[in-house]
């Protein structure tokens, strides 16, 4: 369904754009049809940038993004609507997704105007009713209201409903539940699970490991724009091999296990500009050495459906 091949996004920073910042560095992974893949990373890992590149909101500097076997960089401005008919996104902050001065259902109106100008009156209302039911919203409770009159969970469902109005095949869900309360979170996650059952492919971007494990078949662990580990979520969480993933697993707060005292290298100032492994400076691997600083380690298969990018496996 979706395939990223060596995708990079570089920004020029500094006074005269003299420095390069690799927001996304040589990222390769794929999503099969009818599959949920989690893209896990901390802030600054480039996970949202990847989501936005897939949505064609940002153009990659290098590499290829294929959706349904079509290189999306070849899609012209004039055909973009056809692309958005099948690929849609939902973002983190439900409140900033709505123009605060308009009613929430304006989102539906926009879709109506742009994609279904021919569908009129009754037919359109039926369509809206159908998607609202699908996401578990009662139209009477939410239509004709301002965003601030709705709860975060309702707004987030509304956004998903908006995407479902189209014939989407791929949904990019960027941190869609991190701003929600615990009691509503799980409902949205379950909704994603149901949509997947109906044939949708989902890229679930998150920083929360337990949510990723809960919902996805496969997961990508991202560190500073590079893929650290990739494969079936059971294997990644069960037997992590990359030092970064191991550190993450050790420091994520869990309800079933208390923290063990492991030494953690805290984050350091600035980004590394050398060419080696992005995790080198924080890495606690006993055998880390000069090889790690030479160039970005390639993804290698450690077992079927489990890849990691580390020289010292």
């Amino acid at each position: 369904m979706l395939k990223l091949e060596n995708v990079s996004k570089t920004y020029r920073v500094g006074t005269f754009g003299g420095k390069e910042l690799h927001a996304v560095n040589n990222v390769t992974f794929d999503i099969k049809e009818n599959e949920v893949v989690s893209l896990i990373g901390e802030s600054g890992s480039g996970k949202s940038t990847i989501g936005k590149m897939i949505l064609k909101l940002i153009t990659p500097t290098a590499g290829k993004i294929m959706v349904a076997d079509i290189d999306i960089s070849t899609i012209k401005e004039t055909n973009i609507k056809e692309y958005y008919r099948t690929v849609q996104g939902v973002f983190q902050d439900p409140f900033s997704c709505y123009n605060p001065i308009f009613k929430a259902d304006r989102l539906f109106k926009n879709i109506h105007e742009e994609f279904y100008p021919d569908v009129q009156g009754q037919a359109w209302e039926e369509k809206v009713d159908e998607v609202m039911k699908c996401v578990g919203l009662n139209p009477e409770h939410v239509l004709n209201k301002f965003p601030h009159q709705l709860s975060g969970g309702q707004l987030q469902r509304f956004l998903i409903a908006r995407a479902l109005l189209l014939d989407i095949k791929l949904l990019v869900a960027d941190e869609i539940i991190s701003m929600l309360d615990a009691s509503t979170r799980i409902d949205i996650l379950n909704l994603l699970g149901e949509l997947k059952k109906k044939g949708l492919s989902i890229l679930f971007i998150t920083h929360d490991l337990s949510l990723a494990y809960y919902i996805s078949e496969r997961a990508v662990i991202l560190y500073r724009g590079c893929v650290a580990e990739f494969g079936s979520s059971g294997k990644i969480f069960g037997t992590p091999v990359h030092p970064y993933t191991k550190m993450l697993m050790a420091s994520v707060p869990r309800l079933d296990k208390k923290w063990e005292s492991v030494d953690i290298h805290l984050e350091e100032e600035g980004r590394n500009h050398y060419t080696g492994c992005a995790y080198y400076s924080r890495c606690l691997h006993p055998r880390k050495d000069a090889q790690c600083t030479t160039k970005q380690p390639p993804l290698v298969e450690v077992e079927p459906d489990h890849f990691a990018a580390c020289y010292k496996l």
Partner: protein
Amino acid sequence: MKKTNEFIYFAFRNKKVLVGLTIIVVFLLVGLFGPLIIKNDPFAYLNPMGAQAPSSEYLFGTTFFGQDVFAQFVLGLRATFLVGVIGGGLATFIGILVGFTAGYRGGLVDEVLNILTNIVLVIPGMAVLLIIAAYLQVRSLWTECIFIGLTTWPWVARAVRAQTFSLRTRDFVDLARLSGMKSTKIIFTEIAPNMMSYLVMSFILEFGGAILTAATLDFIGLGPTNTLSLGLMMQYSVLWGALQLGFWWWFIPPGLAITAIVGAFYTMNVGLDEVFNPKLREL
């Protein structure tokens, strides 16, 4: 719309807005309906006595030549408001257009427009106005409006650009793009409505600024040649020695009116800032 109501509610509770608005409305009414009451021709030499202090016959007195100061004042007021609306309006319009385009498009378009903005910004506006004004023999009020409009827009452009920049990265704009909406539609239906307060305030500032610039131009003798304005009244009064001869009624009304109008606009602006920005609101 609920939000709008809230703004109006706060606007009418804000003393600064109320005071500013009242002053402006009073002057505006005088300018609008004054001519209906005043029968005197502002240019006619009515009073054979020449300059005379205010009396029941001549409300604001008469000039050196016996012209009715009040009649002139009303006419001047109209010109002043016209400069504000047209000059300030034009500046706001250009500024908004440039600001939106630069802010939303970004990249090269932004660079080019930004250079243009900065060039106009650093051109010593007054000097250019002087040269142009001196070059044209007959100048109408309209030319003055256009001069002012074409030279004072950069401030608006910069402010609008900065706002657009920050709004452009908001998720709802991304969502609008995902809905396949065209850029112009996004700017005018998604971004602009969120900046209404900003745009209104820019216009108010430009309005006051245009009046002030026009008054300065008029005062140094580069104003319109075929009509009258508050600034021109002050110029003539000074020219004919009103200061030395103590004809205070000739220059005080226009001077006070300009100060009051511009001051009222700025006061209103500060007040509106408090209204639009809840953090400054006094409950």
